């Protein structure tokens, strides 16, 4: 039984291997991009609301509200990254019900790639907000000795992100595969439905955790600013 679509090698040329993970990822990307383009291509010309447009607006509003509630910041700049994380994972997991489709999130390579993206996005948004030194300063606060722990925390949470998603999705696939061999009628369907729910929950958890990490990077900066201001006033 194939546990990961990584092992589905479709084409290889030297070290370059076109496996199932990449192909299924393209399918998800194509579905998301095409769907969005079909809805939004005549957005400016439409005078009244269509159902599909309303659905997308509801989705975007939901994402905005969640980001705002979690980060306590305006969601504008985070929306493309966090929203894409959620949509990609949710759509990948949902397409699992299609026979023959292997969700790319069931591959540790994909979840690791997403976790690495979050790992990079946290300092990216932090630096964008405060600047390089401003961001790096939070590693040595409140003490220089906290820097190693902060760095270990950064790596460990990235690892946790990758493994949590991979484990959940892969386990769902594995469970369905095992059940098919034990009880091929009816029961796998229930488990597949449960797998859909788990997939959406994991997408939500992944997106919320990414938001929390990014927000913590930017909110640390704000706290640092407040402390600096306080010190400045006390000194004067």
């Amino acid at each position, binding site marked *: 039984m194939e546990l990961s679509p990584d092992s589905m090698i479709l084409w290889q040329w030297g070290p370059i291997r076109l496996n199932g993970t990449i192909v299924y990822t393209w399918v998800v*990307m194509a579905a998301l991009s095409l769907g969005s383009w079909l809805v939004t291509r005549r957005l400016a010309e439409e005078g009244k609301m269509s159902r599909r447009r309303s659905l997308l607006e509801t989705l975007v509003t939901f994402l905005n509200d969640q980001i705002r509630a979690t980060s306590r910041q305006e969601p504008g700049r985070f929306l493309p990254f966090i929203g894409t994380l959620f949509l990609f994972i949710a759509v990948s997991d949902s397409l699992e019900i299609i026979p023959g489709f292997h969700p790319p999130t069931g591959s540790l390579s994909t979840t690791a790639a997403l976790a690495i993206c979050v790992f990079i996005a946290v300092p990216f948004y932090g630096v964008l907000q405060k600047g390089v030194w401003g961001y790096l300063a939070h590693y040595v606060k409140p003490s220089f000795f906290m820097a190693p722990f902060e760095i270990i925390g950064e790596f460990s949470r990235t690892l946790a992100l990758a493994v949590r998603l991979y484990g959940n999705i892969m386990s769902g696939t594995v469970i369905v595969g095992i059940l098919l061999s034990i009880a091929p009628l009816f029961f796998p369907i229930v488990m597949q439905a449960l797998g859909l729910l788990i997939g959406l929950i994991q997408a939500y958890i992944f997106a919320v955790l990414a938001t929390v990490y990014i927000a913590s990077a930017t909110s640390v900066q704000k706290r640092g600013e407040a402390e600096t201001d306080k010190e400045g006033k006390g000194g004067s």
Partner: protein
Amino acid sequence: MGPDWFTVIAQIINFLVLVALLKRFLYGPIVRAMVRREAEITARFEDAAKKADDARQERERYESLMEEFAKTREVMRVEAREEADTLRKELLAKAREEVARSRTQWLESFRRERDSLFRSLRRHVCEQVCAVSRGILTDMADASLEERMAACLEQRIRDLGTERREELAGHFRIPGQEVVVRSAFEMSTEARRKVIRILESLDADTGTVRFEVEPSLICGIDMRAGGRSLAWNLEEHLGDLEDLLVEKMADSMPGESGRNDGGSERRIDEHGS
């Protein structure tokens, strides 16, 4: 079981491409549309609020106008009523004046017509009476009416009494004074003789007697000398008749002229018969 690093890198690139694609085709247009719609809704609300404010101001203006109009209307109504009252009074006064003037004119006209009628009646009655009397006197006494009138005059002078007759004779006996004897008809010789005899009884100068015909006397003889007159005619009786008619007519005045006229004719007919 471990990650395939080529796949990891490919997936990172794929994810970044997907972020770019969704930003281009999903978040950008949708967020812009939402912002635009929010702006439109805000603009509509502001427009609605402005229109509501305009409508409120317009309503207040119209209410003010209506109030002013109501006041003006009330004032105009009062003025119109006063003018109408004044005009009505003026018209009533004019109408009353007109009615009074018409009534006066009508009464005057009626009076004139009545007088004219009476004069005509009197004339006709007198003529009729004279004719009847003449016929009766001619038939019964075998004498002309003038003769009979002269006899009546003579009898009347005789009935005056001595003192009155002497006083009367005092005016007629002046020598050379012309005595004018007037009658409605040409007097006969016999009648003239009787008149001469009457004058002689009054010691008048009979040489200056002049006989005249005066149709207005209708029926009778009138003798004048020295500013005094001695006469017998139907004028007196007809005057009494006229007074009676006028009195009767005045009793039934004003208004029912037609019936009065009929009544007058009836009375005249009665007198005539």
